[in-house]
């Protein structure tokens, strides 16, 4: 079988791939923002020193981290309507799943970020009379976030790649767009190749961007 790329056109990309790409990006952005928010909360719970907060947070995080994302997606899709008591679509289900799933990963990133702040910094804040929450807010989290930006962004790139797994519940993401185009035009092999190239271009440029940012925000110690 030979490869024939002649049928690619802007029209094809626009009508099949674009809406998928928009959804992939939407999903990535929402899951990143939501994941960082809940992940930070989970991280604070895990570091709180209070058993009642620590154990549930740790259990949640470890469970999420040991199940394949595809299974989590299927689970949520199956269970969400039962939990919420009302039906939701594949797209919304995917968004909720990704936020919940990514929170576990962002939690671990934030936790190691917070732990990477030297103990001396924590002591210094306390020694000036700051309360726990002041210390967290003003001293630790700003530094932890800054140190973690490259890792957070790298995780976001992984997340963007993982959005391709929503095929399991039939949500229409970018890969799906390519697949449908390929099927309708009888060119599946070519479209997989095109999908690989587009994903690579997006993720590679993002990872370059991370590099640049990394140098910009690095705190001089």
């Amino acid at each position, binding site marked *: *079988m030979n490869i024939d790329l002649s049928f690619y056109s802007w029209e094809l990309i626009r*009508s*099949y791939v674009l*809406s998928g790409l928009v959804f992939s990006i939407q999903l990535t952005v929402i899951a990143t923002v939501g994941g960082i928010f809940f992940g930070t909360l989970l991280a604070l719970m895990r570091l709180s020193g209070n058993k009642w907060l620590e154990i549930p947070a740790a259990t949640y995080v470890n469970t999420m981290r040991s199940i394949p994302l595809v299974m989590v997606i*299927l689970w949520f*899709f*199956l269970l969400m*309507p*039962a939990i919420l008591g*009302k*039906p*939701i*679509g*594949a797209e919304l289900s995917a968004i909720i799943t990704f936020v919940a799933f990514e929170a576990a990963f962002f939690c671990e990133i934030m936790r190691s970020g917070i732990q990477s702040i030297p103990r001396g910094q924590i002591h210094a804040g306390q020694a000036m009379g700051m309360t726990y929450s002041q210390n967290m807010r003003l001293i630790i989290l700003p530094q932890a976030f800054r140190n973690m930006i490259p890792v957070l962004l790298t995780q976001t790139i992984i997340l963007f790649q993982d959005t391709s797994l929503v*095929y*399991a*519940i*039939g*949500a*229409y993401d970018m890969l*799906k767009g390519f*697949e*449908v*185009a*390929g*099927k*309708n*035009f*009888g*060119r*599946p*092999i070519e479209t997989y190749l095109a999908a690989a190239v587009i994903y690579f271009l997006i993720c590679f440029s993002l990872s370059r961007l991370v590099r640049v940012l990394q140098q910009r925000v690095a705190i001089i110690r």
Partner: protein
Amino acid sequence: DTLAKIKSSSAVTMGVRESSGALSYTVGDGKFAGYHVEICQRVLGDVQKQLKLNKLDIKYQAVTSQNRLPLVANGTVDIECGSTTNNATRQKDVAFAVTTYVEEVRIAVKANSGITSLNQLAGKKVATTTGTTSVQLLRKHERAANVNFDEVFGKDHADSFLLLESGRADAFVMDGSILAGNIANAKNPADFKIVGEVIAVEPIAIMIRKDDPAFKKSVDDSIKKMMKDGTLAKLWDKWFLQPIPPKGNKVGLALSASTKDAWANPNDKPAEDYAKK
């Protein structure tokens, strides 16, 4: 119940498939088309009239073989217009409208392969799609005829067809319409043909929630009306014999005797009853 829900929200969610041949497929851009999709659109038009709604918002929800059942059962999808076999197991969880299409499970092969029947497939690679009844069907046939297939699974029909097209499988066992649709869409439709005996006959129907007799009656009535007044025959011609979007291919699937029979005697009998005949 569904009618009340549709009435109160002025909206309904239609489950559709991305690539179930001419029965239900996407034409890109989040738009869907096909024989069952159009039937459902007409049915919902009747429902709208019945409920006296001046506006009914139809939301399309793409479903897959794996998730369509739970989606209908849990209420995500109100009416599934894809290519779902009506069988006894499923009737435990969902209900079906009267059969609109009778599917014959057949074999697609490369035109030059020389294969003409199921029994020639012993020891060969046979493709089918994960999450469909054909998987079980093949398994049962293997046992009954004491042969052995080397099964390969596509994650959806187009994938399974690709297995055949790329030579990874020698045959693709699936519903005839799906085979025909995929062949029509192939780069060289002449390279493939549908051969052999009818392995199984399956009633394909529109799927709705269980225990909602009012909604079922509305749907059934609307379909029965279309059966009588010849609308279904026209739709058959439109989707299976004439060129269809997006590429303008013809599926070329003539109306089968069993489908005609189902139109003449509207029923929602499960596949098991067909098998007994």
